[in-house]
């Protein structure tokens, strides 16, 4: 049995460790403390925890004010509310004012499961990517979560993190180092590169790479935990090395990871890119396994996309000859 850890527990523990060392760290919640699992933080730092009630716009605006007062506010709510309901507050009071708000959106994409379409953000990365200088990231396992939250805390400026709350298999070792804006190579490969982000899709990409081996295809797997700024160097290295890419995201195809990779390729080294992602659709209820198939995100779909990529490249090569 692979070692699994509950992501929200890791997030909370990381915040507690940071807060012990840095008294500027404060926490804001909008009546979702039970969901975020940050109650333990409140027990230890009651005076540094602010439950703002069901009022996300005010919460993010207050976080900006706390930052103007010298604090480092982590502000949590479901990703749908973080991104959509408090967008102008995060945009103007946080980012435009060049303050230091750490916004955390939980249950990204299909992780919302039974909360369904109203709570299922497939667009948060897209709208967040449009905020100048904002760092947008999504950890894929407990280790990368801990290390990237630490990096976010020490970074001077706003960040937006997508947080999967549930138990997730550990894929990194404690010795692994992480930098915001630098992707991690999980597996090397020669035929094609799978670039994934987030707990659900990195796991699917790793599964897909195993399935591809059975078909004699060597796939590299990259954990692109930071969607903005995107790791241009790493993308271009693997574009040159493997000649084709598949991006895998728990998000709309529009303006997410796949778009960021496509923008990088088209201006530097165009190779064939296939994108696994939600195809211009709203969310709906269901368990993760159902939704992975419903939105064509699962390992099986990644395998198909990789094979399509290789076949199309073959055809293009024939045409070129």
């Amino acid at each position, binding site marked *: 049995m692979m070692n699994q850890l509950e992501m929200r527990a890791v997030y909370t523990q990381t915040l507690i460790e940071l807060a012990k060392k840095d008294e500027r760290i*404060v926490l804001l919640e909008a009546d979702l403390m039970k969901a975020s699992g940050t109650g333990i933080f409140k027990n230890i730092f009651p*005076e*540094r925890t*602010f439950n*703002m*009630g069901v*009022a996300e*716009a*005010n*919460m*993010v*605006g*207050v*976080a*900006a*004010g*706390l*930052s*103007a*007062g*010298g*604090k480092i*506010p982590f502000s949590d709510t479901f990703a749908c509310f973080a991104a959509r309901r408090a967008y*102008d*507050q995060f945009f*103007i*009071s946080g980012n*435009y*004012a*060049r303050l230091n708000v750490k916004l955390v959106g939980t249950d990204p994409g299909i992780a919302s499961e039974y909360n369904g379409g109203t709570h299922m953000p497939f667009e948060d990365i897209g709208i967040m990517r449009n905020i100048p200088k904002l760092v947008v990231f999504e950890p894929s396992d407990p280790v990368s979560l801990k290390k990237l939250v630490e990096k976010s805390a020490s970074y001077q400026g706003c960040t937006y993190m997508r947080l999967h709350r549930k138990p997730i298999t550990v894929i990194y070792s404690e010795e692994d180092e992480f930098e915001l804006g630098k992707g991690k190579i999980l597996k090397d490969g020669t035929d094609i590169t799978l670039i994934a982000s987030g707990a659900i899709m990195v796991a699917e990409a790793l599964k897909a790479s195993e399935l591809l081996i059975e078909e004699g295809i060597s796939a590299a797997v990259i954990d692109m935990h930071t969607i903005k700024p995107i790791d241009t160097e790493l993308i271009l290295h693997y574009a040159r090395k493997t000649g084709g890419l598949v991006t895998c995201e728990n998000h709309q195809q529009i303006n997410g990871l796949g778009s960021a990779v496509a923008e990088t390729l088209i201006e530097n080294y165009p190779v064939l890119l296939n994108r696994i992602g939600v195809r211009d659709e709203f969310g709906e209820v269901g368990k993760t396994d159902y939704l992975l198939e419903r939105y064509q995100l699962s390992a099986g779909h990644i395998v198909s996309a990789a094979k399509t990529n290789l076949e199309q490249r073959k055809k293009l090569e024939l045409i070129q000859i």
Partner: protein
Amino acid sequence: MEKQELKQLEAKAKEIRKMTIDSIGYLGVGHIGGALSVVEILTLLYYKHMDTSPEEPKRKDRDKLVLSKGHAGPTLYSILADKGFFPKEWLHTLNKGGTRLPSHCDMNCTPGIDMTTGSLGQGMSAAIGIAMANRLDGVDKKVYLIIGDGESNEGQIWEGAMAAAHYKLNNLIAFTDYNKMQIDGYVHEIMNIDDLNAKWNAFGWFVQRVNGHDFLDMDMAVERAKRELYRPSMIILDTIKGKGAFFAERRLDNHNMNVNYDTAKEACRLLDQEN
């Protein structure tokens, strides 16, 4: 308040009003109405109540002011220039390309601006956050907040009203510039906000209502607010939009209007002729 101090404040307000009319007139267009309705309150705060430090604008332990109706920036710029936060020559760069004085307050552009505002409602929450940070750090200073009456249509104002009372932020002293007009017309016709006193009372604030152009009334209200032990304060200011500029006062189109520079200079001359 001593008579002499009152005279000085009234003279200062006239000077700030003239500087503001001049800077908007020099540019030729601006938010003259809402800028002139807050001249007295900003003058009272900056020249009597607030501990500011022009030589060290980033100092943490000083009183702060969030002008949530950020479009009234030109009035605050006149005061900050007068107090030496930056040279008075800057006032003629208002809104010009590359200026450090944009139409809406920007803490990264202008020395002495404590919070970036312009998207209405947001200064409310920011002021709450600054007040919370002060309390955590044991900084015994006030956070002053000025919101507009039209701005009070925003839901965020009332989210903040609930939160500031819930956290018993007695270090937050807010003002509503109740000049009764918003962009599209009279507030009571566009989106009625009355009964404003009852609303803020119901949200748990210490509410006072005074003439926003009367220094004695406002001063007493601010003194009482400073002594409040548990509640945030809302001081509703009855004001006149465009106050003191003959071409703009009480005019429904004065929110953001073209201003001929000669007309602006004439308005300043008329102010000089008043007692």
